[in-house]
């Protein structure tokens, strides 16, 4: 009888091998050596307080804790990443579909876009593109006038969602730059994701008379999204870190705030360690979040 059979044999637990002990030991020695060098050889007096004051400080009059430059920079980085991701995902989706379109013109456009951006250093692209769009296009759309004449309510909403009014056009330009840049990589992720769906799915869907658009929307993309989620998560985290390049163009995000704090306090190492930790925390948070999402999606339907 099947239910009389014994339970599965226990897997033997993996023991510590000698080599593990040696490797971990060596790692400890290496860390200890670095700490020793920093403590005794590097002439550096560690002082964290001035930097920490720029994370948040206690207002001496009211006794309230106020988020300072670095937290504000972090929030700006998050806003950049948030809007940048939405815009990049939109660009990536449209361009990714163009990449596999039957229309030669669309295919060529998307190809040129991807190759152009992938083969230019980000700093060059950001520099040229930013100064072009912000000096030529923004005045045409009238972003600056809009920002200046906005009512206080609008200003506070925009201030919360995007950036302070006076830097709104910079922010917009920065988001577009980032989105254009990351969009090229998402384009390729989307293309690969869609192409990884087997031909039978297309045929099954076409055979019940669905139009190309419907096949894409109802059958191919929902399956492709699950496949592209892991590389997309990686790309999003890259975007958070890449958002530092727009610091070149006076957007007060985390890296830019850090350069200011480092210049003001002269505590360079402390500043960058604190800022590095802040980047790590948000990127790791998103990595875990996407990991969960991925798991849920795969449990959902398989």
């Amino acid at each position, binding site marked *: 009888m099947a239910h009389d059979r014994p339970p599965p044999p226990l897997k033997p637990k993996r023991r510590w091998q000698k080599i593990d002990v040696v490797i971990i030991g060596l790692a400890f020695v290496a860390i200890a050596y670095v700490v020793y060098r920093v403590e005794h050889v590097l002439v550096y007096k560690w002082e964290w307080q001035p930097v920490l004051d720029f994370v948040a400080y206690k207002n001496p009059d009211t006794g309230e804790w106020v988020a300072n430059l670095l937290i504000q920079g972090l929030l700006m980085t998050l806003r950049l990443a948030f809007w940048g991701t939405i815009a990049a995902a939109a660009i990536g989706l449209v361009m990714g579909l163009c990449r596999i379109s039957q229309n030669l013109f669309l295919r060529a456009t998307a190809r040129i876009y991807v190759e152009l951006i992938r083969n230019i250093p980000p700093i060059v692209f950001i520099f040229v593109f930013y100064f072009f769009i912000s000096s030529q296009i923004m005045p045409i759309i009238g972003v600056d006038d809009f920002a200046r004449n906005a009512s206080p309510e609008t200003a506070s909403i925009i201030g919360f969602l995007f950036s302070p009014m006076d830097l709104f056009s910079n922010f917009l330009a920065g988001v577009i730059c980032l989105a254009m840049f990351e969009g090229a990589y998402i384009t390729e992720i989307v293309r690969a994701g869609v192409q990884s769906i087997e031909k*039978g*799915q297309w*045929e*099954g*869907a*076409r*055979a*019940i*008379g*669905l*139009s190309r658009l*419907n096949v894409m929307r*109802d*059958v191919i993309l*929902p*399956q492709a999204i*699950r496949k592209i989620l892991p590389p997309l998560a990686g790309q999003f985290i890259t975007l958070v870190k890449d958002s530092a390049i727009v610091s070149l163009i006076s957007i007060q995000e985390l890296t830019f705030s850090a350069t200011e704090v480092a210049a003001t306090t002269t505590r360079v190492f402390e500043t960058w360690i604190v800022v590095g930790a802040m980047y790590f925390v948000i990127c790791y948070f998103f990595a875990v979040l996407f990991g969960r999402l991925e798991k849920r999606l795969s449990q959902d*339907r*398989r």
Partner: protein
Amino acid sequence: MPEQKMTEQNDSRVMLEMRGVGKWYGDFCALYDINLQVHLGQRVVVCGPSGSGKSTMIRCVNRLEEHQAGHIIVDGAELTDDTKNIELVRREVGMVFQHFNLFPHLTVLRNCTLGPMRNLKVPRQEAEERAMHFLERVRIAEQAHKYPSQLSGGQQQRVAIARALCMKPKLMLFDEPTSALDPEMISGVLEVMVELATDGMTMVCVTHEMGFAKQVADSMIFMDEGEIVEMAPPEQFFSNPKTDRAKLFLSQILSH
């Protein structure tokens, strides 16, 4: 002569007509001068060695493959490059694939309602009622809320048949529907197909299941090297094949 059978139904509606159809992959000729008429209610079984062009032929009927010569007319509408026309034809022609091609991210029920809701603009509730009706017909209604991967191969193929039926097609194409199934799953699928045939569905069926062919076919087509070599009523085809190629094929397949 096949004409004997055909003449009986000459007055009924021609559902599928292929005239001089040809198709090439590069220099390789996959189909050559295919001529075929299928009338309303007729059941045609296509057999032949692998690579003989059987699948290509029926895939041309709903334009999953494009033919390069000749004419294909489905219920009076000719297949051309006109996308709208192709989509119309596909709505009238149901297709069942060797590998089912169910949508893994949708439940069985949603697999069945997608076509009617998107193409025929059937409201959800009506589409679901229709889907449940056909799922019951293929005896799988209790699995309606599962995902395809939770079903056996035979069950999946029956869902695929129900999905095609939900479009209320006038013509059903079967492309080796049992070839990818484990032996014990085959009979369930064939039963459903026999029932369909008995109910009068017009069918073109590529299969090696000769028992099924004997049971339901009005007409047997034997293909080899991209051509229709023989076309005959089953009793004649099985007892007295005319060509050596058909004889050889039958001896191989029936000796199993």
